[in-house]
């Protein structure tokens, strides 16, 4: 029998990170009491009219730009008509033709190497409310707090060939949209959810087979499991010579199986038509330029740049994982040109401290300027590594100036050559015996002499500089003595 290959396309709904709903000024809060965040617009009262949230438009366009979509200067909202208790107007407001973004793609690392997954479109739409089923009363209860929440729907081409690829694509897309601050992406809140279209066809065949559509999966794992199950189910049908029907399916994560929601014959007739209450969605060229400029560089480019600046891979990974860390790093590195040291300090001290205290990097009391100064003191040898670690807790808490705090605490190292030479000369003068031994070839005695310099400086001397100063001072003596002996 011919080998069958799966063909998978995804439709992802991501909730946009706005403060208000798509068509009214009600705030968005999944934790609010039922039906407290509603007004005449999002509850579908007679006479109420929608007014578009400009931020939602920007976020949708931004997502499109980041994935190389064509952002349409003019797109339209349509009404998608159907009756359901959580749909207050009797229609959803969505984009059909044209949507705000078309085309574009996202590259993923597939099991057989890198692959480009093409996007069909991104469009804006509003979410429905929530139905809660009350089996005791035999009623369905409706909460409209979520009704009108802005979403983008991202539709891929059927370019995915396995559950592993689908999951990798979703992870990559999720990370990108979160990094762009297009969505909060909390999957447990349903802020990032996915419909899967899946069909099988004999390998080598170019036409698509009959597809099943699995609705509303809100975890990467469920997507993987649902695809695996559906591939097996459809393959079983083909093997048995039975037809695969075009259906809408529901995935039951407890039983790991899909169930029919409705067949093609029951498919809705949504009667789409242009929404007459809303003007066309306009994206002016100026806005597009602004959005383009605000886009962060792609992750690969950022990593390569940081590597070029001398950061170690572990530090790069940490910085890129933490929101705002790369921006913090760039600001610090602009103040003091010691990227390697700054990166190391962030990876070893700053980011762990932020993590521990739950403080976002960008709002840490120790700002990029302070951290840059700390790196500079370390590089100059004025502050030792141990002293830096000792100070860090307080710097992180208070945002104090590292130089001043080190001075106050007496932790600054003397690395000034003149001062070290003076100290070395004193020690040499007061320890003629040890100096003699050193000059006689017992070089290990230098450690003792360095210790004496440290004592005289009350620990503030830079030990490396002190050793050098001692060697220089004793070298002078040796030459003098040698000369005398020779006379």
């Amino acid at each position, binding site marked *: 029998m011919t080998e069958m290959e799966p063909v998978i396309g995804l439709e992802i709904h991501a909730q946009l990170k706005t403060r208000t709903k798509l068509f009214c000024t009600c705030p968005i809060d999944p934790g609010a009491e039922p039906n407290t965040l509603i007004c005449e617009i999002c509850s579908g*009262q007679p*006479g109420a009219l929608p007014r578009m949230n400009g931020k939602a438009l920007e976020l949708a366009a931004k997502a499109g730009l980041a994935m190389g979509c064509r952002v349409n200067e003019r797109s339209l909202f349509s009404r998608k008509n159907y009756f359901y208790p959580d749909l207050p107007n009797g229609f959803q407001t969505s984009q059909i033709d044209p949507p705000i973004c078309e085309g574009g793609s996202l590259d993923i690392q597939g099991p057989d190497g890198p692959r480009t997954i093409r996007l069909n479109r991104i469009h804006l739409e509003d979410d429905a409310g929530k139905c809660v089923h009350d089996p005791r009363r035999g009623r369905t209860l409706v909460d409209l707090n979520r009704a009108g929440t802005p979403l983008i729907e991202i539709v891929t081409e059927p370019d995915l060939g396995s559950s592993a690829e689908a999951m990798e694509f979703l992870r990559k897309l999720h990370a990108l949209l979160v990094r762009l601050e297009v969505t909060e992406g909390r999957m447990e809140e349903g802020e990032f959810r996915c419909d899967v279209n899946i069909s099988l066809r004999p390998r080598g065949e170019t036409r698509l087979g009959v597809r099943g559509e699995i609705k509303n999966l809100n975890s990467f794992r469920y997507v993987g499991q649902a695809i695996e199950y559906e591939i097996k189910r459809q393959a079983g049908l083909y093997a048995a010579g039975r037809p695969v029907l075009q259906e809408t399916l529901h995935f039951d994560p407890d039983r790991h199986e899909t169930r029919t929601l409705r067949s093609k014959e029951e498919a809705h007739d949504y*009667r789409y*038509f242009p929404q*007459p209450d809303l003007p066309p969605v306009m994206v002016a060229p100026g806005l597009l330029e602004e959005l383009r400029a605000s886009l962060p560089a792609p992750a690969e480019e950022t990593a390569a740049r940081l590597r070029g600046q001398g950061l170690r891979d572990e530090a790069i990974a940490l910085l890129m994982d933490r929101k705002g860390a790369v921006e913090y790093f760039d600001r610090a590195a602009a103040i003091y040109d010691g990227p390697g040291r700054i990166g190391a300090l962030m990876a070893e001290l700053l980011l762990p401290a932020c993590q521990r205290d739950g403080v976002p990097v960008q709002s840490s009391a120790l700002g990029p300027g302070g951290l840059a100064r700390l790196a500079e003191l370390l590089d100059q040898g004025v502050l030792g590594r141990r002293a830096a670690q000792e100070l860090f807790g307080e710097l992180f808490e208070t945002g104090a100036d590292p130089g001043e705090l080190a001075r106050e605490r007496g932790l600054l190292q003397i690395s000034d050559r003149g001062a070290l030479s003076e100290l070395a000369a004193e020690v040499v003068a007061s320890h003629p015996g040890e100096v003699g031994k050193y000059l006689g070839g017992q070089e290990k005695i230098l450690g003792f002499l360095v210790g004496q310099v440290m004592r005289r400086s009350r620990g503030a001397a830079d030990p490396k500089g002190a050793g050098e100063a001692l060697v220089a001072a004793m070298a002078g003596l040796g030459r003098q003595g040698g000369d005398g002996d020779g006379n």
Partner: protein
Amino acid sequence: MTELWRLGLGQAAQGLAKRQFTATDLVSASLERIRLSEPRLGACLAVLGQEALDRARDLDREGHDPSRPLWGLPVSVKDVFCLKGAPTTAGSRILEDYRPSFEATVVRRLRAAGAVIVAKTNCDEFAMGSSTEFSAFGPTRNPWDPGRVPGGSSGGAAASVAGFQVPAGLGTDTGGSIRQPAALCGCLGLKPTYGRVSRYGIVAYGSSFDQAGPLARRVDDLGLVLAAIAGPDGLDSTASGRPVGDYANVAEARPGELTLGLPDELWAADFDPLVLGVLERARRELAGAGVRFKAVPMPNLRFSVATYYILAAAEASTNLARYDGVRYGHRSGGDPGLLALYRDSRTEGLGQEVRRRIMLGTFVLSSGYYEAYFRKAAQVRRLIQEDYRKALEGCDFLLAPVSSIPAWPFGSFTDDPLTAYQLDMMTLPLNLVGAPGLSMPAGLGGGLPVGLQLMGRAFDEAGLLSAAKALERILPPLGDPPGL
């Protein structure tokens, strides 16, 4: 002193400014007129008597405020405008007990200008109809003949103004619903340009057609009300940002400088002879005063009835999907399940004409028919707009009849929807185009008012009012309805 209820809006405003009477006097007079005439007219669905009196007394206590042009003036509003906490039924059983949680923008603006809303007027259910017979709450009668309809859908508004209950009322016009009842009741009505007035808080019928506008007994009074309600609104995205004209102070046009286009397709209709007689006499009078006429072809107007009914019904079918018995409004008794709850609540709550239009609108949007009906109609709408633009090229305004027949006896067309739709032929084109229009009395034919309408360029309401003032001076006043 003349009876206060006889005064027009502007006259009453002057009297108030000169302290000849108080707001309370004026509002009381209006309420008294309503009390006396309602048994005959049935113009009002709700009379806000106590609230109106309280408000008038408050205004009197605060003292006359010249910065509020409608200070102390009683007005009626059609029952499609949301008043917070007050009944707002749109003439439908399905909204019988509904109380809005918010106020329509135009109502807020009327109140901000100092107006006192005394009544909510009757209308065809959801503004669908041209006789007010499709109100779920009984008929409104024509002030000139109680055996005849007042026109519609703003029939209550027209009857309340023509019957001297109020000096001005607010209606809505989706396919002629201000202009036609104004003509049939013998008062004036203005449909502004689409987007000139906010639609926020107006129970929707056809979203790309609906406009609110005033009905009154004088041209100047139309301007006073329009000035108070016009202009952009942060709550209606389709309201226009175009600058607002000085509608309350327009100069009268000189008849000798007016060229009016006469659309061939509208003047060639099959007129009732009495109506035709009045129209021809009016044209002679205007010509005698120096007005020039020019015949203009608008060939695509023969499609306007089909175009309008397809598009407006489509919009209506989804605008009315929210009446499902879930969140507000009528819910069918019994508890047979969700599907039956939807079907029974809607079938019981919505009247026959509304259901007819929902059926038509659902059909033209449904899979397989969208292209041939809905999209095709939207294309023809463009052709009609183009015809309109060309027609105005060589003239200042267009002049057309409003209705080919005068107010008709009750029941004439209730079982013949298609004929009733075709009667809207004269008024629909403006709504398809989005342009402004004004209907005014041209005279009496067989004791019934006959109207004429002026149609203008988008956002030229000031020009329209100015021309209408000239016509108002030339055409003879109708006098009082009998039995007033």
